[in-house]
């Protein structure tokens, strides 16, 4: 049975591509910004939303900070995409003074050594050996800010996949059934579809009470 999948309605994010990608996998996501639904859903997707400050303001206004924190802290199936993974972190250079969800101990900074910004296009994803959902391959990125590859991530149980464009940075983090991708799995062709499918399998296992 396919899981009850809720896509966080952020108001400004481009969710059509995410919805289309899940539909191709046979899952119909529901859009919601209801805190109770987002706390209880089998699986939740936090899509990328324009800017860091606007994204956090939107989550706060909708009362979604606590439910999203609780999901991630308990390892409940959650997929954060692009800006979504930055929102899991502590804060961002893009919006000084604005706190993120703070569930992943890393900061977001502007890419400074990339020859051109935004970092648009396909780049290598190199997962460390502890990653169980993210595989090596190539994924599509579209961003100018990125999460620091901070040693505290591993200390708090996160597995990290990296990429490089002028400098090394976080391509994805995962812990239990929580997956955060700086790249866009929904735009990463067969690689992205396979990754989303593995995450859905992990989500189904978690919902069945299995160890993830």
């Amino acid at each position, binding site marked *: 049975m396919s899981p009850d999948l809720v896509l966080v309605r952020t108001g*400004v994010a*481009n969710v*059509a*591509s995410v919805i*289309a*990608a899940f*539909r*191709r996998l046979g899952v119909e996501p529901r859009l919601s910004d209801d805190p109770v639904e987002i706390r209880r859903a089998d699986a939740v997707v936090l899509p990328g939303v*324009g*800017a860091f400050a606007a994204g956090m303001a939107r989550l706060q206004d909708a009362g979604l900070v606590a439910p999203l924190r609780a999901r991630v802290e308990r390892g409940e199936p959650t997929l954060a995409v692009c800006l979504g993974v930055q929102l899991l972190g502590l804060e961002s250079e893009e919006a000084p003074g604005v706190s993120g969800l703070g569930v992943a101990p890393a900061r977001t900074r502007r890419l400074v050594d*990339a020859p*051109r*910004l*935004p*970092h*648009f*296009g*396909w*780049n290598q994803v190199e997962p460390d050996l502890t990653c169980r959902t993210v595989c090596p391959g*190539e994924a*599509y*990125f*579209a*961003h*100018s800010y990125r999460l620091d590859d901070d040693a505290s991530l591993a200390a708090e149980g996160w597995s990290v996949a990296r990429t*490089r*464009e002028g400098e090394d940075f976080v391509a994805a983090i995962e812990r239990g059934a929580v997956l955060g991708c700086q790249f*866009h799995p*929904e*735009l*990463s*062709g*067969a*690689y*992205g*579809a396979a990754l989303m499918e593995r995450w859905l399998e992990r989500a189904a296992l978690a919902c069945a009470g299995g160890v993830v």
Partner: protein
Amino acid sequence: MVRLRVIPCLDVKDGRVVKGVRFQGLRDAGDPVERAAAYEASGADELCLLDVSATREGRASAVETVRAVRAVIGIPLTVGGGVRRLEDAARLLDAGADKVAVNTAALERPALLAEIKERLGAQCTVLSLDAARRGDAGQPGSTLRWEVVVAGGTRRTGTDAIEWARRAVDLGAGEILATSWDRDGTGEGYDVELLRALSEAVPVPLIASGGARTALHMETALDAGASAVLAASIFHDGLTTVDLIKRELARSGRDVRPSPTPTPSTLG
């Protein structure tokens, strides 16, 4: 390192793919959904869909075509043509576009770029720049080498293309799709001088467009600083495939993403 991109372009009119020369003499080139799926399977890194009739006929872009293409492809989709207001851009994103290309309306009202960037992000905001060489280029007293053309190539503006690109990036454009009006549909190769001038002028990724026939044309565009090469006719007409072009680029040392799967030698 981020890979160099190969981007097939679907010029769409009334729900069909069309292609002409210098934006004129359009002929039918197939169904956009079938084409899009075939190009993704052949290794396209992104797709571009331009509603070529939209501006002149003063209507919003082909939303239904965008929806149908998005349903079948899992790679990024840039859509342009007839985007006049922020609402047009938002509607295209809702239908499944990932980036929106703005041309005529941005030149008439540059603040449109800032509005789209503010609301939807620089990663969604593409300046579509159609540039034509000036006949008086190089003449004494003339510093303007390319001028912007708008309204589907039907109107020359006298605006310096390089200056306009700079300003558009300052306003919020995150990428520039630079089409040479002189080369479009001719197969004579990209306007490499235009690409070099733009590449030096702006820090954002540049997509080369207009005139490609061979992998060598693409190599020269990439060497001139383009991050991506766009082509239409050569893929529509079956002169080559995305896969074959990428193999040639890889053989000559350009850093492209290998095709996802072996592909049929002809397009569906």
